[in-house]
């Protein structure tokens, strides 16, 4: 990289909603006034002490924050056994899987639903892939007494039945989307179509750090609670900052939440782990940064999986939560300036990590988080024993047991 880094990497986006050349507001005119309204409302909410207090109250007493920072001692020792002498970094888990609803998603959903209420919106829509964001949104809507419609690709409805039922129990309406390939990107298209038709009363609760500005920034800010807590907890436990942060990236909200508070700490290396599916050199993966190129979809400019003619191609991953052909624009920028290293972990590596974590730590991780863990398994043995890695264990794996059983050839 020849371009000098700015003084702080935490100031983005600019007033056009851009992180470098990425991000922006690429939406139809009908939505534009509303996007600007959301932006204004969010700017006000950021500075509104009562809003922040209410969100914090919910995080503490409803979600169960702060989530623990767990020293994964058995895993650390296991990795040291096969590492060269003196090698094998200490591994910590930031345990977002202990949050209410089982993942980090709830952090940003509660913030957004509070914002929707403040804006006077009376109806919530959301898209979901694996169903985690849909469940979190349905949960917040039940709590705050708002009707909720969740768009979900028909293919995902089929393979994520337990989460579909959870959303229904929580009072949400799940609308299967049959257009396109009937997965997450099509659900997001349908969410945007609904929003265009119902701008007067509806708030679109986006599940990741993507979409038109201000969503990438807003979702990141809400998720930054992960990194802020991690910083305090690791200082308390070790008296210093970690040497490496690792997190899986689909859209990338859990990773932005962990990374953002550390972006200016040059000594902290960061690894974003993309789903390499059946392999980066096959056509079946979800590695937008490693195998995609810049384009515009769902309101933002970012790295996308696309063919030579600019048609968006389908993503693949064993983890439905990473099965998206794009990535948040701030990640695209962090990649281009070289601040975060993005690597790929394939289905098989994730499955192995999933089992290792279950047996050594007694924690069944989400398949998304297992991708991050697989990178830790590679990284830790290359780092000295006095080094520290923090993995964002972003979700729990209860939802994935059927998928994993199928891959292990077991019937449940």
């Amino acid at each position, binding site marked *: 990289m020849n371009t000098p880094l700015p003084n702080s990497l935490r100031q983005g986006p600019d007033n*056009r909603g851009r992180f470098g050349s990425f991000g*922006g*507001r*690429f*939406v*139809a*005119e*009908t*939505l*534009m*006034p*509303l996007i600007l309204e959301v932006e204004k409302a969010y700017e006000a909410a950021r500075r509104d002490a009562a809003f922040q207090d209410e969100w914090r109250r919910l995080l503490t007493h409803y979600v169960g924050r702060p989530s623990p920072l767990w020293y994964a001692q058995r895993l650390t020792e296991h990795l040291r056994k096969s590492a060269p002498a003196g090698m094998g970094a200490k591994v910590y888990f930031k345990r977002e899987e202990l949050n209410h609803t089982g993942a980090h998603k709830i952090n940003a959903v509660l913030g957004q639903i509070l914002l929707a209420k403040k804006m006077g919106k009376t109806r919530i829509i959301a898209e979901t892939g694996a169903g985690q964001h849909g469940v979190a949104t349905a949960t917040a809507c039940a709590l705050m007494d708002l009707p909720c419609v969740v768009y979900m690709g028909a293919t995902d409805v089929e393979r994520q039945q337990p989460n579909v039922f959870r959303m229904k129990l929580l009072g949400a309406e799940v609308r299967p989307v049959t*257009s*396109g390939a009937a997965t997450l*990107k*099509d659900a997001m*298209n349908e969410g*945007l*179509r609904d929003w*265009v*038709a*119902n*701008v*007067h009363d509806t708030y679109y609760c986006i599940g990741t750090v993507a979409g038109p500005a201000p969503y990438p920034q807003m979702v990141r800010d809400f998720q930054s609670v992960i990194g802020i807590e991690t910083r305090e907890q690791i200082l308390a436990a070790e008296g210093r900052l970690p040497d490496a942060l690792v997190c899986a990236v689909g859209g990338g909200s859990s990773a932005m939440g962990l990374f953002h508070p550390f972006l200016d700490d040059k000594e902290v290396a960061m690894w974003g782990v993309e789903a390499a599916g059946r392999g980066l050199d096959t056509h079946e993966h979800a590695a937008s940064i490693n195998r995609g190129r*810049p*384009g*515009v*979809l*769902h*309101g933002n400019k970012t790295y*996308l999986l*696309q063919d*030579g*003619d*600019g*048609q*968006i*191609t389908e993503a693949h991953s064993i983890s439905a939560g990473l099965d998206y052909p794009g990535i948040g624009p701030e990640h695209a920028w962090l990649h281009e300036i070289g601040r975060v290293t993005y690597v790929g972990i394939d289905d098989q590596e994730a499955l192995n990590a999933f089992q290792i974590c279950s047996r050594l730590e007694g924690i069944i991780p989400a398949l998304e988080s297992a991708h991050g863990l697989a990178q830790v398994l590679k990284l830790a043995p290359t780092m000295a024993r006095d080094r520290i890695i923090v993995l964002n264990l972003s979700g729990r794996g209860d939802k994935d047991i059927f998928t994993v059983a199928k891959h292990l050839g077991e019937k449940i």
Partner: protein
Amino acid sequence: MSRIATRFAKLKAEGRGALVTYLQAFDPDRATSLEILRGLPAAGADIIEIGVPFSDPMADGPSIQKAGLRALKAGATVPGVLDLVREIRATEAETPIVLMGYYNPVMSYGVDRFCADAAAAGVDGLIIVDVPPEEADEVEPHCRAHGLDLIRLIAPTTDEARLPRVLGATTGFIYYVSITGITGTRSADYASLAPAVAALKRHTELPVAIGFGIRSPEQAAIAASVADGAVVGTALVDALAASLTAEGQATPATVDAVLAPVRHLAAAIRSGRRRAA
């Protein structure tokens, strides 16, 4: 004067509004699409809008989404669409051709190269749905450099404060979206159209065409009389779809299935003028 300006000036002199037709390129296949598009001027279309197929058409309803999938299956690409325009232009010198689509295929092709090649193929204007005025610098300089009009959508949600900014970034004509919603899903509220267009006209000299909620000849006639033109898309795409085989293939009836309703729309707009006069 551009073909678009010339055409609106001519229709104004005739005392009627324009019939703007929308179809996706390559729907259901290249040859049928070419035959339909070539037949449009004789059937009474005043401006030909051609959709550039995209995998993720976020502002379009089910009919146009399906048309896009048919077109992509038939092998539509950006160079393929430009080539189609070149062939239409070879026999049709005067009718303006406007390409409507989404930004990613244009960006992938290269914005400047796209504008240059589109202009050379005989395209007169572009509508890029997901590039609002806030992002206009991505495309505006290239359109200007190659003499393409950049037509913008104005929605019922566009407020007075925003209007000058949107209008300032528009050339050719204004595309007034008559509903809050995606294409072809609601019917325009005709009572509110006249005041909405009048409000626009206070801010601009540009012609205004109304679209997104117009299906019938009667609706088209009203829209073309209160504004300077009516855009009909979904109704034509539906007529086309209804003529296809179960597998989505063209039949001998397909070309006329589209051109016949175009003739009815054109006749209604022309008689609407007589009533108004």
